[in-house]
């Protein structure tokens, strides 16, 4: 068949010459690529138009998207061998401030310390820490620190300072030189001081503790012949009786004690038992809040209670009359428990009265505590100050009997009860030197300021307990022109050895070799190979004399008010008041931030026209009271606290620092140290005489939790030990209702169970093939101390918002500790603490409401936030039943692109202070939502380490910041898919009866479970429990 030829046009048919040209030339016209010099004059053809359009659009897009200014990072010229950018280094160090002893591991990134955690190798504190320890890393970058030595307020060089002080020392002509310090627990520092003393025989060292324990020291001297503090072993105690000793919050070394005490509060479900804790106090402390039986009294009654207790345990004293029946019964009950557990019980007292402490020693000796729960073989060095020495010093200063005064680590012009006398004496003294880090109330009156390093810049050692050493090594080069106190003192003693060499030589001499010293520094701690046996001591105190003296303690009349001063967990004695993290940490009990206030009972408040209830809850402005005691007066707002004795007013010390203390501390609260009095032997931190009157002023307090009761809702589950033993399942009775939805109580974590699958349209959306993170929080061992809150803040760059914003409920804490009061008696409530953080729900209500999918679910069960995607509708926060999502209401940290809208109250955005930020965690901009991430950066780090080593992740390698900080090990975290993990065992084997999820019935499937709280109190007490919670509206 012939191939037929088709043609498209006549041109093709005729195949003209023009047609052939056209066919051969695919592009018939020249493409107008004009790139000549005539570009600007060219008439723009169509294709160029598109080209230019494309170019300008692309250029405009690129230009528009490059809005972020370029900031140059300067690389190392010679990179230090040990620093790899992006990889943290860890160094052992020690928090040894004011006698507290917490061996640490410091995390540094690119040469700057950003986080501290307890040193796992320490048997005393382990990985635990306190809020203040966690906050200490921020104090390093405190912008208010002195940056150079000064002479009469003017900047000087160290050599000039050395010259002038040297000349002044020489010119003293044998007049006494006094070194005034807080408790020093460093053996080497003490040696340096001794070296100085050797050069200047007229020298003496006075130890002054702002909050004094000299009553205990003197009582121990009188009772046992040792002016020392014993090592307490709460872990051995079945019965703990505390008379005002806040050993979980502020007493001596709370990390150590809460770790020990925590061990006795853990419940082994197979054999449930726990210690029983009686607490007697005036104000409610963290420790009191955790007690099984708690009784309140006036502060002046402490001695009577001690005597009554001694009498009840068989001591040879007569019991004073105690009119409060509940209190009297409580003493009897405590005594009964103590006697029943002879050798397994302990009594501690927070009183600074020698005689009260002697009676307490007598009780301890009566109940066989010495050698079992109280160790006299190893004593602790936590506090060493003797009040009378300080009293004498102030007298000497005013008499002109002191030639030179060196001040290190103390601030008596602020925290001494008679600060005025001290300051006047100081001014009369010829040579005054301060080594303090700040130009504080004391240092502003000295001639020479020789600022010492922060501990993270220093070398040093510490001996917390006899034979238990921990070391301090610099984790950063000194930020300012400061010099170690020891180095200065060495220089002034004419010793030319550098301080670090001095320290090294000391320890090489003790340990034998450089290698041993290196290892000691690396480990951070040296402890006895085997824990030394506990030793007793025989009591030799004069009980009768002490009892007589207690009898003459001044007391207020019936219905008259008394004043008690206390330390807050966060702020303590006020030394670290310029720490925005600590200022903003909600007080564990009052939930208030950024202030001190007059804590009073509801009953007392009614007389001032305030009372608990809706009005009180929704209005932050509180009535201001005028409080007069010891001839001094102060104006403070009232704050109502159920659980404080109705005739007691409690005020926290540590506030009211002056402007030199720094931006965060200045003007916050009032200084009430002037209410302290000296009783001839020791300082009393209470006043039996106080006059209070209402004023017409009001004052706003930033409280983060305004409602006190959990309204009987099953978000908190609790029972008594007795009932739990009787029927372990009872506490979780209500979970059985979930049965009808296919819930399998025997296998609550089986994700195939019907309860999990029912109630969602998408049962198979989240499959967790590999890791599935989960957390368990034991309400029985959460004491509410708040260390986790600050640890979380430090780890995750959580912003500080300031008091005004706390009042607006804009605080940012990812982890808060809810504190609820229960019980029927508003004066003696039961307290429960519940750490609340993102529950990482597997069926998260926040995730499905976000219009832009900014919050979503990871394959490991983490509810994650993509900050860059968030547009800030806040729907997720509204729909979060746990209310743990935190919105960036303002520009807290300069992370948005608007100029001059920074909202920084605490001074967190100084270039210096920003060095504390964790580079692994994004700083969130204004307008985005944030919340707990389960420390995802730490989890990723642990996973990568395991991956590099070519092995699966081991349990315990990935730990969250809150978990590490918790002294009582209340938080267990891990991979619930790993059957060997602790979290799996807690949920499925060890704590099945107590385990519950908060708001489980919502079917949000949280990844955090709680373990019900068990109170070791009498059953008849708990009878009314069922209705009590709901009933307690007032609280």
């Amino acid at each position, binding site marked *: 068949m012939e191939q037929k030829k088709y043609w498209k046009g006549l041109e093709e048919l005729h195949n003209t010459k023009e047609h052939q040209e056209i066919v051969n030339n695919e592009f018939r016209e020249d493409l107008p690529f004009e790139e000549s010099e005539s570009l600007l004059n060219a008439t723009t053809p169509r294709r160029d138009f598109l080209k230019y359009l494309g170019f300008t659009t692309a250029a405009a897009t690129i230009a528009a998207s490059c809005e972020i200014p370029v900031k140059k990072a300067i690389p190392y010229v010679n990179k230090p061998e040990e620093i790899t950018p992006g990889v943290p280094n860890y160094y052992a160090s020690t928090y040894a401030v004011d006698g507290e002893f917490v061996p640490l591991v410091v995390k540094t990134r690119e040469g700057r310390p950003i986080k501290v955690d307890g040193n796992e190798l320490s048997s005393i504190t382990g990985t635990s820490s306190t809020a203040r320890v966690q906050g200490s890393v921020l104090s390093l970058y405190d912008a208010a620190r002195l940056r150079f030595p000064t002479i009469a307020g003017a900047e000087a060089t160290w050599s000039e300072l050395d010259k002038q002080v040297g000349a002044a020392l020489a010119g003293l002509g044998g007049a006494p030189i006094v070194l005034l310090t807080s408790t020093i627990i460093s053996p080497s520092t003490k040696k340096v001081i001794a070296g100085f003393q050797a050069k200047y025989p007229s020298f003496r060292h006075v130890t002054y503790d702002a909050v004094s324990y000299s009553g205990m020291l003197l009582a121990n001297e009188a009772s046992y012949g040792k002016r020392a503090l014993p090592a307490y072993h709460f872990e051995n105690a079945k019965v703990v009786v505390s008379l005002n000793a806040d050993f979980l919050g502020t007493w001596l070394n709370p990390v150590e004690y809460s770790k020990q005490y925590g061990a006795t509060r853990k419940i082994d479900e197979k054999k449930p038992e726990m210690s029983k804790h009686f607490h007697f106090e005036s104000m409610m402390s963290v420790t009191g809040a955790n007690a099984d039986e708690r009784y309140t009294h006036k502060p002046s009654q402490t001695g009577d209670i001690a005597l009554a207790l001694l009498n009840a345990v068989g001591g040879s004293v007569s019991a004073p009359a105690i009119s409060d029946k509940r209190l009297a019964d409580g003493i009897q009950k405590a005594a009964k428990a103590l006697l029943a557990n002879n050798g397994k019980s302990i009594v501690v007292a927070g009183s600074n009265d020698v005689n009260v402490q002697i009676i307490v020693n007598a009780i301890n000796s009566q109940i066989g505590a010495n050698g079992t729960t109280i160790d006299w073989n190893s004593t602790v060095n936590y506090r060493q100050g003797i009040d009378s020495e300080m009293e004498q010093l102030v007298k000497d200063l005013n008499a002109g009997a002191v030639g030179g005064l060196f001040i290190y680590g103390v601030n008596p012009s602020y925290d001494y009860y008679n600060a005025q006398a001290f300051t006047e004496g100081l001014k009369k003294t010829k040579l005054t030197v301060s080594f303090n880090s700040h130009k504080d109330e004391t240092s502003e009156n000295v001639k020479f300021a020789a600022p010492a390093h922060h501990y993270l810049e220093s070398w040093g050692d510490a001996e917390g307990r006899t034979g238990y050493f921990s070391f301090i090594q610099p984790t950063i080069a000194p930020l300012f022109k400061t010099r170690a106190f020891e180095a200065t003192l060495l220089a002034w003693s004419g010793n030319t050895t550098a301080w670090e060499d001095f320290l090294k030589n000391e320890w090489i001499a003790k340990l034998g070799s450089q290698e041993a010293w290196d290892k000691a520094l690396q480990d951070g701690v040296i402890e006895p190979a085997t824990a030394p046996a506990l030793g007793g001591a025989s009591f030799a105190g004069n009980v009768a004399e002490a009892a007589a003296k207690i009898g003459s303690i001044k007391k207020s009349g019936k219905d008259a008010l008394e004043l008690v001063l206390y330390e807050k967990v966060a702020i303590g004695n006020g030394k670290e008041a310029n720490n925005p993290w600590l200022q903003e940490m909600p007080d564990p009990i009052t939930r208030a931030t950024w202030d001190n206030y007059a804590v009073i009972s509801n009953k007392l408040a009614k007389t001032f026209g305030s009372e608990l209830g809706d009005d009180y809850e929704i209005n932050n402005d509180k009535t201001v009271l005028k409080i007069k005691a010891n001839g001094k007066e102060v104006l403070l707002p009232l704050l109502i606290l159920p659980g404080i004795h109705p005739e007691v007013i409690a005020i926290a010390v540590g506030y009211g620092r002056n402007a030199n203390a720094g931006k965060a501390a200045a003007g916050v609260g009032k200084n009430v140290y002037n209410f302290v009095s000296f009783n001839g032997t020791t300082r009393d931190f209470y006043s039996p005489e106080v006059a209070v009157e209402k004023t017409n002023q009001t004052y706003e307090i930033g409280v983060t*939790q305004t409602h006190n009761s959990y*309204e009987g*809702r099953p978000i908190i589950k609790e029972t008594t030990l007795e009932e739990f033993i009787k029927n372990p399942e009872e506490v979780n009775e209500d979970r059985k209702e979930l049965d009808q939805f296919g819930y399998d109580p025997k296998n609550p974590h089986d994700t195939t169970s019907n309860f999990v699958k029912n109630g969602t349209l998408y049962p198979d959306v989240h499959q967790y093939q590999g890791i599935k993170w989960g957390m368990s929080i034991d309400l029985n061992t959460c004491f509410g101390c708040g260390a986790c809150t600050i640890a979380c803040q430090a780890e995750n760059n959580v912003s500080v918002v300031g008091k005004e914003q706390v009042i607006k409920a804009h605080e940012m804490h990812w982890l808060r500790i809810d504190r609820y009061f229960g019980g029927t008696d508003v004066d003696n409530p039961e307290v429960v603490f519940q750490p609340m953080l993102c529950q990482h729900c597997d069926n998260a209500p926040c995730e499905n409401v976000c219009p832009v*999918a900014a919050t979503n679910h990871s394959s490991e069960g983490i509810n994650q936030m993509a900050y860059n995607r968030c*547009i800030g509708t*806040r729907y997720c*926060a509204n729909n979060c*039943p746990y209310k743990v999502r935190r919105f*960036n209401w303002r520009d807290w940290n300069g992370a948005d692109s608007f100029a001059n809208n920074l909202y920084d109250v605490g001074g967190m955005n100084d270039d210096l202070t920003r060095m504390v930020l964790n580079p692994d965690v994004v700083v969130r901009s204004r307008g985005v939502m944030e919340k707990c991430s389960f420390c995802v950066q730490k989890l990723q780090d642990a996973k990568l380490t395991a991956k590099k080593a070519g092995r699966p992740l081991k349990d315990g390698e990935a730990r969250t910041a809150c978990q590490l900080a918790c002294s009582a090990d209340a938080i267990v975290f891990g991979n619930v898919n790993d059957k060997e993990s602790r979290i799996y065992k807690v949920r499925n084997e060890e704590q099945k009866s107590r385990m519950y999820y908060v708001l489980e019935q919502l079917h949000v499937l949280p990844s955090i479970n709680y373990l019900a709280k068990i109170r070791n109190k009498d059953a008849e007490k708990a009878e009314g429990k069922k209705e009590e919670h709901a009933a307690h509206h007032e609280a």
Partner: protein
Amino acid sequence: MHLKYESTLREPLVDGEKNYHQVTEDIISPIEGKPGKLWYVGFFISVALLLWGVFSVTWEVYYGTGVWNLNKTIGWGWDITNFVWWVGIGHAGTLISAILLLFRQGWRTGVNRAAEAMTIFAVMCAGQFPIFHMGRVWMAFFVLPYPNTRGPLWVNFNSPLLWDVFAISTYFTVSLLFWYSGLLPDFATVRDRAKTKLRKLLYGVASFGWTGSAKHWQRHEALSLVLAGLSTPLVLSVHTIVSFDFATSVIPGWHTTIFPPYFVAGAIFSGFAMVQTLLIIVRKVLSLEDYITMGHMEAMNKVIVLTGSVVGCAYLTELFMAWYAAVPYEFATFYKYRAAGPLGWSYWIMMTCNVITPQVFWFRKMRRNIVVTFVMSIIVNIGMWFERFVIICTSLYRDYLPSSWSYYRPSWPEVGFYMGTFGLFFTCFFLFAKYFPVIAVAEIKFVLKTTGESFKRDNMEKLEPLSDEQFAHDHAHHHDDHGHAGHAVAHAAHN
């Protein structure tokens, strides 16, 4: 066509001696003259309010949402309250223009133009709140699903907020089209009467070359029907979707299945109230009492008492369910913290304004009393504002965990923002009243000859005495004088 008989018992929709020309004169001439003093005063106040709103919002955008008094517990307050309130108000316009058109309710012609304008302005006001309540409003475009270079990263189709984006934008678009297509013949009328060049040009452009040909009319009618058909589901769906913002959540007080009908009824309730507020002023100021008659007022008051009662039933149903469901959290929300508690006062304002006071409209005298109607329309809108406030805030402020309970008072930028949307609304409405025919001229003419007072008198009264047989004999089989309505109107448009 046939005689369009309307009983004389039925109230005329246009009062007075009107012919087509008179209608045009009455409605169009205000556009051509200078506005009165009152208009200037009102307009100035509106613009001032608008500027105050712009300042408040700028302040908020610059310094962050933290200048509002919302907090960790209460993430939405006045912002979303105002959003729902404005959206709800818009519903009356759509209901009048769409549903009443489909049901051939002649009385809608007097009020539909203004009601639709109100819808559009209200939706514009409403839209400001979801936009500016965002923490990062400059990223607001993230809510739009479009192919992008971020993955591509899509929006979350599970989120009711996203449904809102679609619902509100669709609603606005359809309402605008509907309103504007209705305006075309009237703009053409203005154009044809124009004596200045500028007016001729602008109204000429605005009328899209409308000539009034039969084809134009036919297409116009068809388009109106189609848009009415499209709008009808929107009356129900928009507020249903807005209610999903709450109903799909887990918060007690929000998580309830009754919300869609309850919200829709509430929306119509508040919308009609707002129409009343506006029209009572408009008819007075522009002397349009002949077109917006007491009959109109009464009809709308009937809708108000109906929807008010529906809403009241919903409130009681909620209370019943909160008890019957035996969920302690929901029970507490309703009985302890909504009907009582620190925010309980807002619940009782809502109950009083929405359920109790509208019952006066069971009485005809009250329905036909201008003062009562005006006062009630304000009360209803206050009540409906509080309804949204109650739903949003009294559910959030005391939810599951008592530790987070909080309280809420608005700050000045929040109040300023709300006032600003009033400024926006009334600025638009004043401009509308000045430059647009506030009553649909063409549609009035459509009904004039059957329901106009004089026509009824002249044409219908003659018929009334006729017996049925006589009437059938005279009028059933041949053309009457009235002709095709379309012709009449087409003709009228040029008068």
